[in-house]
């Protein structure tokens, strides 16, 4: 069982038909993601990293090729609520409190009242926002809002967490802090995480596996298995090992650009 990958893409192609002709967003993408992996997708804009994440989520349908999530098609997985999705913006409903926002998916999925409040408390604790459930989104900072949106994605216990540049709009200090917290959260929850970013240090710091992608057509140019230990203090970013991996990511990105 353990050898069955949680997410597997085989020969994935996706072409958008636009007025300026077809755009090859994804070309021949093959990838296996195992249970408990933390996988980062990194590359310049237009490399298809977000599109690939959306394919996994069943928000985008590939033109050809196969993709399976928990042994199902992405659409089935979506309907089975197999994953939580975190967008670049927190996207909290301004008319709901933080607790109300986290209850949103639970209401839609029909959880019981008592179960809901227990879950809200638990995920708020996970993202270090205990006591904020009665606050409205505008009363929170950008970083806190994004943490609340992660809590919302965790609330219904999907074992996959898909994150599309969740910290892209935040400043670097907040970002470092959230990265550290995200690793702790990942260690505590054992989730499989797909994480889109365009920051090399972020990708190297967080991931067990780094997928380097390049644009036009969007494709995978390198897959790097991280040799960093699971326990990662922020200072690890100064270690030679970290710098070596970052160098390899940078080379991968540069090689991708040589094709243009």
């Amino acid at each position, binding site marked *: 069982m353990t050898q069955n990958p949680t997410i597997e893409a085989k020969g994935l192609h996706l072409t958008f038909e636009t007025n300026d002709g077809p755009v090859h967003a994804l070309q021949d993408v093959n990838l296996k993601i195992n249970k408990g992996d933390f996988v980062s997708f990194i590359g310049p804009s237009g490399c298809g990293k977000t599109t690939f994440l959306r394919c996994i*989520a069943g928000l985008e349908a590939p033109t050809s090729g196969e993709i399976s999530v928990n042994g199902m098609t992405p659409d089935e997985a979506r309907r089975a609520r197999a*994953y939580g999705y975190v*967008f670049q913006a927190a*996207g909290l*409903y301004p*008319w709901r409190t933080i607790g109300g926002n986290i209850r*949103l998916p639970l209401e839609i999925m029909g959880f019981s009242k008592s179960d809901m409040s227990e879950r809200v408390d638990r995920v708020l604790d996970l993202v270090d926002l205990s006591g904020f459930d009665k606050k*409205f989104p*505008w009363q929170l900072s950008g970083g806190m809002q994004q943490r609340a949106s992660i809590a919302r994605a965790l609330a219904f216990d999907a074992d996959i967490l898909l994150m599309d540049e969740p910290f892209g709009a935040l400043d670097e200090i907040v970002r470092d802090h959230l990265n550290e917290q995200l690793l702790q959260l990942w260690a505590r929850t054992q989730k499989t995480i797909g994480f889109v970013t365009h920051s090399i240090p972020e990708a190297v710091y967080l991931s067990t596996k780094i997928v380097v992608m390049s644009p036009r057509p969007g494709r995978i140019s390198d897959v790097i298995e991280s040799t960093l230990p699971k326990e990662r203090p922020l200072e690890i970013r100064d270690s030679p090992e970290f710098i070596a991996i970052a160098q390899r990511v940078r080379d991968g990105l540069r090689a991708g650009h040589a094709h243009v």
Partner: protein
Amino acid sequence: MKSILPVLTVIAAVLLIWIVAVVPMNVHLTADQAQRDGAVVMPDTSIARKEVSGVALALENPHLIPLTYVGKRPNLPSPHQVSAEMFNTILGKKITSKRSLVYHGWVTLAPTLLGFAIGTLLGVLLAVGIVFSRVMDKSVMPWAIVSQTIPILALAPMIIVVLGAAGIHGILPKSVIAAYLSFFPVVVGMVKGLRSPDHMQLDLLRTYSTNNIQGFWKLRLPSSTPYLFASLKIGISASLIGTIVAELPTGAKAGFGARMLVGDQYGQPILSWAALFAAALTAAALVGMISLIERGTLRKMGMKLA
């Protein structure tokens, strides 16, 4: 409370323009009357005075100026005449009296509110249909727009007559016209509001595999609330206008519209003006009421007024 000063400034400016305008507007009438009462007026015939502008005539006969403010049938009633008439007909009469503006106000207000309720309900239902059905989007929206290009003044008597022929009298025909004017801003605002959630918010609901009905109640409807209130404010004043217009051409015996018409037909402009101001105050009160509800609702929803 900081807005009090600018508001008062504007009111003072309007009053000033009004007070100044009364003199040239009424001076010819006043001169005729004064001459009949034995006063000396220059030039000394009515026909000769017609050649002179109101301003010049007033400057030549400054003793006429105070008289322009108290004429019985002025072209332009002075502010104190209108306010005296309003005071008299709003507070000075029993509200059941046919001469009470409160009575006429209620006659207009009742169909306004009923029409507004019908129009809002219809507008919201149409907007929901338009947002969820492509067919309705393509078919209903153009007709809604066309409906508003027909002058209501031409349409109102037809509606009254047709409904009258069908045996429908009283408050309902006026409400139909009020609803006809008020449903449109609600449709436009609600379509915009129900479509206001962006791609990301809709995608988020898709990741929960939310159905359309849940999406409507959880996302689209709450998102549209600020738009709804903007529409309601336009809708309720349009409703009032619709009711007044419905009272004009149909020989209605009561209501602001009837009051304005009576004043016009029997040469009692003060009456018309009093009804006009009473209608304006009613509209302001209605819009103010919706603003209050808006403020309360949005605050409860944790949204601050923009």
